[in-house]
């Protein structure tokens, strides 16, 4: 909200500078975001009067203008068309800081000869002064302004940009802000006195008001002004609106807007002649009812919206916007002026449903006081009577079915201390509350006070609201700083939180760069994960109101973003790239919140090491990816068994999975060539994926085994097996023999030296027991038993 400092000063004595006031307001919770100083550079610029206009000897379009400045006269060269003897204009001497009318840049006015004639300073346009964009002619001032008046005194101002929090609708007004300033500085407040003469018969003879739905409209007030002459508003009024950023329209509209800005109470003026049956009914809209709003758009209304109607039709959407059918026009002669109170939630709902968040709407939906209707109505009536009307009908309409008594809230010094942590005296409490308009009653010597909030403070409802006022006015900087003295509560940290950090650190150790990508994605990119470009079988979680078609779904996988990342970093293929993301995927559960397991996904391609001056290195392959996964699992204490897998995004031959509890918890493989192609990755890509929450139950606690005292026996065996028999099957059988403490594969061979359809697997076996040295005989016995079992179960024979 833009707020003119000059305007504020109409209501409160101010001895502090604009910057000091801005600081005080900000520290009291009313944030002054920025201050724009109008006329900061106007030193020396004053009002002059044109005493002569002579033609320029060398240029037709220029004139020589002589100015009376009070203590001297100056002649300046001027190109403006609107120079006339007697006019009051703005004179800037040489050395003034002005805006260049053509370039818009700020520049110092230099002594200059224009077409051979010296110009001692200049007469300025609004643009040159930085007031507006107007540059067609020089600024002409009202004739009653004294020659020699400084421009700063005349037009200087500071425009605050204030952010009012939703709980303080009272501060969406000049008077509200002035009240705060008065409370914070201890200065006096001046409220306008709304005095006007009434004539003729009572307003009640001219119009009736009924409230059908007092829940949505607790109060409706109105006045009637006749003999209206629609005209342009006076300068002072237009200036006020412009300072706020509003466009002046005509005297009536401007007055209602002005009073809304002054008091914070929105008003609406109806053309009285257009009110059918001279009766106002505040009711819910009928189903199918329509109204054409002031902007000419026909709006469909619904039963939950409140309208202001006459005997025939709706004439306004309550609190939101007037109807075209009762609009004030050039021919309007009588005005019915409305000042009413509406239920905030209803206004919020209607404003949003109709897409019309207006200034009025913003104030109503935040809950302005019911008691604001009368003073604002009287003030506006007074201004209309002064500026555009002849007669005000006697009295006002005041239908007030929703009258509420403001309650007192009792508060002790201990209550305040309990929340703030600082003991304020009862005097401090009462004086700060009184300053912001509370009525306080404290018995002598008592440690508690009974405080009744002023009518405009609709946000004060419970003791803690009052406590905040005390802390706010005294200042948060008075509150001490203490560390929590209570014992630290018992902790039950989530295992997943620690696991995530562990896994991240391991990945970084493996040379992976972490990525963080958006949770929101689209079907197009997910479709790329299928070699046949099929859409996902079950749709991911859909957003009802996506911001863009690129962010329509919650990601069901991390793969797509990582592959896109590889694709956009093709420059790194040569040196090799390892990327990972650890984050949630979102799995739809009809009618419920989605499952959000934390997943790890890693992708790699290119060389194992980046190029070096002593030579490069080989390309990574499936076993790099698998080795990393195995290493990671081992580090966190998981023994995993890899099985064949059939993930469609991966190469059918090069992929493997770990299944636990019927769930695929680890997957590693080479990306399917078609998928690489979809993502435009010109290289083999290896990918792994780990479901972290599913790992948690599998993590084995580490145990200590004594370091063996007796030497181990090492035996190498080369087996010939069918090509279909795999490493793991052999391993599982060997592992059943407890004397074998370690097994390592050291060779895999298929070719001429073994029969067709067979392959050779060579294992190194370590035999050991903790309590003695094994004899050759004992080892031979076990080895024979192993070979026998391998033969009977897998058809394995020793390679000859």
């Amino acid at each position, binding site marked *: 909200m833009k707020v003119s400092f000059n305007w504020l000063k109409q209501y409160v004595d101010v001895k502090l500078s604009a910057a000091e006031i801005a600081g005080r307001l*900000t520290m009291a*919770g009313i*944030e002054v975001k*920025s201050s724009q100083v109008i006329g900061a550079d106007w030193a020396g610029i004053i009002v002059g009067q044109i005493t002569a206009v002579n033609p320029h000897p060398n240029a037709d379009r220029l004139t020589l203008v002589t100015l009376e400045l009070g203590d001297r006269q100056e002649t300046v060269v001027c190109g403006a068309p609107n120079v006339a003897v007697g006019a009051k204009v703005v004179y800037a001497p040489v050395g003034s800081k002005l805006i260049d009318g053509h370039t818009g840049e700020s520049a110092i006015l230099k002594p200059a000869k224009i077409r051979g004639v010296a110009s001692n300073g200049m007469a300025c346009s609004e643009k040159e002064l930085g007031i507006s964009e107007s540059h067609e002619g020089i600024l002409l001032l009202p004739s009653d302004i004294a020659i020699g008046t400084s421009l700063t005194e005349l037009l200087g101002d500071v425009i605050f940009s204030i952010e009012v*929090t*939703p*709980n303080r609708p009272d501060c969406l007004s000049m008077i509200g802000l002035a009240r705060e300033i008065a409370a914070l500085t201890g200065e006096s407040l001046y409220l306008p006195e709304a005095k006007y003469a009434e004539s003729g018969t009572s307003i009640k003879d001219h119009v009736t008001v009924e409230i059908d739905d007092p829940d949505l409209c607790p109060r409706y007030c109105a006045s009637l002004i006749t003999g209206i002459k629609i005209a342009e508003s006076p300068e002072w009024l237009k200036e006020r609106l412009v300072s706020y950023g509003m466009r002046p329209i005509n005297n009536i509209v401007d007055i209602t807007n002005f009073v809304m800005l002054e008091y914070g109470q929105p008003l609406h003026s109806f053309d009285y002649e257009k009110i059918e049956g001279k009766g106002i009914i505040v009711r819910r809209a009928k189903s199918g009812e329509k109204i054409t709003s002031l902007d000419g758009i026909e709006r469909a209304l619904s039963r939950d919206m409140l309208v202001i109607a006459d005997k025939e039709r709706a004439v306004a959407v309550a609190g939101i916007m007037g109807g075209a059918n009762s609009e004030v026009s050039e021919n309007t002669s009588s005005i019915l002026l409305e000042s009413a109170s509406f239920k905030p939630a209803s206004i919020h709902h209607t404003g949003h449903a109709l897409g019309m968040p207006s200034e009025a709407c*913003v104030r109503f*939906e935040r809950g302005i006081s019911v008691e604001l209707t009368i003073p604002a109505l009287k003030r506006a009536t007074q201004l209309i009577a002064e500026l555009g009307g002849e007669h005000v009908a006697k009295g006002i309409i005041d239908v007030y079915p929703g009258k509420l008594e403001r309650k007192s809230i009792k508060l002790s010094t201990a209550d305040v201390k*309990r*929340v*703030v*942590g*600082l003991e304020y005296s009862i005097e401090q409490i009462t004086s700060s509350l009184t300053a912001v308009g509370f009525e306080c009653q404290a018995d002598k010597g008592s440690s508690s006070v009974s405080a009744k909030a002023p009518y405009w403070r609709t946000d004060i409802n419970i003791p*803690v609201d009052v406590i*905040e006022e005390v802390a*706010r006015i005294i200042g*948060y900087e008075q*509150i*001490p*700083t*203490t*560390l*929590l*003295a209570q014992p630290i*509560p018992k*902790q*039950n*940290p*989530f295992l997943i*939180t620690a696991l995530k950090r562990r896994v*991240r650190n391991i*990945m*970084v150790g493996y*040379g*992976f*760069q*972490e990525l*963080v990508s*958006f*949770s*929101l994605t689209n079907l197009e990119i997910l479709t790329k994960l299928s070699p046949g470009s099929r859409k996902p079988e079950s749709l991911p*979680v859909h*957003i*009802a*109101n996506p*911001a863009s078609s690129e*962010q329509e779904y*919650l990601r069901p996988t991390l793969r797509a973003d990582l592959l896109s*990342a590889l694709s*956009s*970093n093709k420059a790194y293929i040569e040196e090799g790239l390892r*990327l990972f993301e650890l984050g*949630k995927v979102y799995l739809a559960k009809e009618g419920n919140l989605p499952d*959000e397991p934390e997943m790890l996904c890693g992708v790699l391609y290119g060389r*194992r*090491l*980046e190029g*070096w*001056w002593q030579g490069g290195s080989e390309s990574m392959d499936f076993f790099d990816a698998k080795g990393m996964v195995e290493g990671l699992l081992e580090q966190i204490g998981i023994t995993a068994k890899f099985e064949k897998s059939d993930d469609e995004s991966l190469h059918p031959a090069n992929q493997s999975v770990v299944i636990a509890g019927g769930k695929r918890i680890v997957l590693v493989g080479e990306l399917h060539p078609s998928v690489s192609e979809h993502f435009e990755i010109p290289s083999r890509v290896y990918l792994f994926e780990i479901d972290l929450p599913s790992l948690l139950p599998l993590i084995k606690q580490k145990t200590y085994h004594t370091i063996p005292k007796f030497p181990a026996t090492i035996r190498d065996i080369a087996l010939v097996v069918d090509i279909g028999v795999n490493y793991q099957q052999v391993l599982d059988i060997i592992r059943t023999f407890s004397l074998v403490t370690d097994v390592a594969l050291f060779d895999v061979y298929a070719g001429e030296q073994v029969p067709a359809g067979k392959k050779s697997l060579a294992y190194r076996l370590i035999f050991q027991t903790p309590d003695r040295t094994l004899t050759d005989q004992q080892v031979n016995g076990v080895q024979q038993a192993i070979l026998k079992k391998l033969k009977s179960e897998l058809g394995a024979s020793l390679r000859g």
Partner: protein
Amino acid sequence: MLQRLDELKQNAFRELEVINDLSNLESWRVRYLGRKSELTNILRGLAELSLEERKSAGALANHIKNELDSLLNQKTESLKAEFQKQVLRSDESLAARGDITLPGRPIPMGRLHPITETLHEICDIFVSLGFQIMESNDAELDYYNFEALNIPEEHPARDDMSTFWLDYEDERGKRPMLLRTHTTSVSARCVATMKPPIRVIEPGRVYRYEATDATHLTMFHQLDGLAVDKGITMADLKGTFYEFARRFYGDGRRVRFRPDYFPFVEPGVEVAVECALCKGSGCRLCGNSGWIEIGGAGMTHPKVLERGGIDPNEYTSFAFGFGIDRIPMLRYGINDMRLFFGSDLRFLRQF
């Protein structure tokens, strides 16, 4: 016998002089000091000699043995030293090793994302102050994101947090599920499910329906915190935040508390730290205020505690929350938030 010993000694001395490598030295040792050497034999045969002879020959033989032993040690040392010098000389002569400024063999360099690092850093500070890390759903019920936090359906505060809704309507035609607009939703869950005393922090992703630009994205990160206990005051909130800021930003940075409004706290606080660029005197970065807003806080609203089943007459509570992404932006002078969520390695490899 004595003469033979003297001869032996002379021969040994002479031969040792010309030995210049360790293997010749070893055969010399075997020859003169080994188990089968003449000297050893003589020493072994002393017993067979007469007492007279045993005395003189024995003394001489032992003397020679000691002399040769010590010469052997000296020679070994000097040959080893000479050998090491040679190795060093030959290494030096390798052309490549001569340039010690050549780059080392590269190792793949892994890095955490700057947002992850920031979150770890912040979490560690609060954990050390007794706060436990809590995590919860990104997709959340309207109830925990709004209702439970004192933000009913028609509350204007909802307008400031434009919401993404999950595409699901209940039987009343309402959409009960959304993407959380703040991690305060986790505080609401903690209040509803935990029993005091509570001290938790809640990092996570949050979502707002916003037009995307350099400082506004539809997704960003926040961290909320909550403490519930008997006797917690605003002074504790202030102290906790000051301590956090002292550790995170360093000793010299001032912190400012000023009144602000959030529906779920009362009194409400805006927390700002002194602008690092201008040290509080005002600059473009801080909008000339000298302060950079880092988060909101306050004393948990009694209604919020009540809704979660905690008696506000027995317990008091503070809550706070701040945006994470802006922290590395300010720290490193990053002017476009979108860089965080892209995959540009030229950006990510700077951290």
